């Protein structure tokens, strides 16, 4: 049993994906990294559930990476 939702949960995922890319548009590599780091922390604070966050970190750390 996991607390993290890893099945489809976002209605307009294609739209969100496009918006995510658009948000990075025109940024340098370093600025993009900074934006991503801020985004992670903003979302983590919004989620506010330590178990969900730990599971999300573990999922992201699972291979394959990159």
């Amino acid at each position, binding site marked *: 049993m996991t607390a993290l939702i890893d099945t489809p949960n976002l209605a307009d995922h294609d739209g969100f994906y496009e918006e995510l890319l658009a948000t990075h548009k025109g940024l340098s590599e370093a600025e993009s*990294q*900074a934006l991503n*780091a*801020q985004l992670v*922390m*903003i979302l983590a*604070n919004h989620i506010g559930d330590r178990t969900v966050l730990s599971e999300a970190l573990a999922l992201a750390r699972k291979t394959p990476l990159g």
Partner: protein
Amino acid sequence: MPYDYQPFPYTAPPGLTAPEPRHKVVIVGAGPIGVAMALELANYGVPSVVLDDNNVVSVGSRAICWSKRSLEILDRLGIGDKSVEKGVTWKVGRTFHRDKEVFNFDLLPEEGHKMPAFVNLQQYYVEEFLVRAALDNDLVDVRFKNEVVEVDQTAEAATVRIETPDGEYSLETEYLIACDGAKSPIREMMGLDFAGELFEERFLIADIEMTADTPSERWFWFEPTFHPGQSALLHKQPDNIYRIDLQLGWDADPVEEKKPEKVIPRIEKVVGHSDFKLDWVSVYTFQCRRLERFVHDRVLFVGDSAHVVSPFGARGGNGGLQDVDNLGWKLAAVLEGRADSGLLETYNTERTYGTDENILNSTRSTRFMTPADGAERLFRDQVLALAAKAPFARSWVNSGRLSVPCVYPVNGADDKALPRVSRPGAVAPDAPMGNGWLLNALGGRMVVLALGCQAPEVAGAEVLTPEITDEIRRRYMGEAEKTVYLIRPDQVIAARWPYVDRTAVEATIEAIWRGE
């Protein structure tokens, strides 16, 4: 005015001419922790000998921030009021990024406690007050210029060999307490591992004397324009002395950086003028380490000999005083035959637990201040950037989480409906009581605190039934009409019940003495 270092007197110890009878307790080290330990034991009627290789107090301010809990402990040792009077009381900390305030905290937002959240007082004053109290106490025998050079132990006793200006002698003792500091020679002599982490960073720590109108607050900067790319701390002490910490980077040369011609221009940039005098300068590298065990049969480790932390959080000296608080009553009971060495083992389990919390917090702060290249730096910098635009990120800015006592994982009964601040394992919160204070009334005894009810006579504890004030209701009762608390001699809450049950209270008392 800079501090006037007066040497304490040396007198030739009796052991030089004839063997001394076996002592109950010998303490190695007359730093703040060793002397506090001796005074705490004296409060329980236990005599001790304190040996120190030196004869002056700490050179330089070193520990300046003394926590509320430390002040409560010092109060029991007779120097609480004096320390508050001499010290600079503060409770607000402000953290800046570049030149903008990003975060602030108030460590004691409520009234009704005898002691303030923190006072700043140079370590040399605290040591002087403690040593003077010890020299006045018949149960404490302080011996300066007595250096311990060898230690040994059997099942019944520990033995130390001591060098003095007049030659060598030996002492035998039922218990030896090593309060010999971060570099603990006793730890070395016993070959004990001091595992942990060194932070590859250097900090310039300076005391300056100047007159200024700055409020009594802790000011911490990340990447200030006056010290680009690094961190800085400014803190007020008594006698117009200010403490300045400047992060220097790992490549800084510690010898060069201590030279006044290097230090003075750096400080001019912090304070914005050159109207100050340098009082003390040192360059430090910080570590977080601890002994695996604090109890080694007849040898007990207390204070920096058992654990060291980086200072951002003031958990070093304050943590050491909490060791003293935890050990005093237990060792006294073992020496009296009231308890067996199982109770001493709880000093080990409880204080390694508290130490781990201190190390965890100190490590997190130091890492935030000195991030490694790569992801650590990326996230650290982005927390600071985010703090300027989102309130949640302000509390993520970590310039030190200041010392608070841990909540011990005790086994006593609990009623979750009662206030969380006074749950079992926590230090009993203070409150006004009559013309005085609850913590003073608790003293260093096992106490049954009966609120809103009459507690029966209980074997092995004194019963206290204070009048129910607003503070006592808020901190101990909540919505309950009656409660019974069992409080240990170190003022830690052992158990609590929403009803009166003499058998349960007595069983818990017996379990405490058995070390359960």
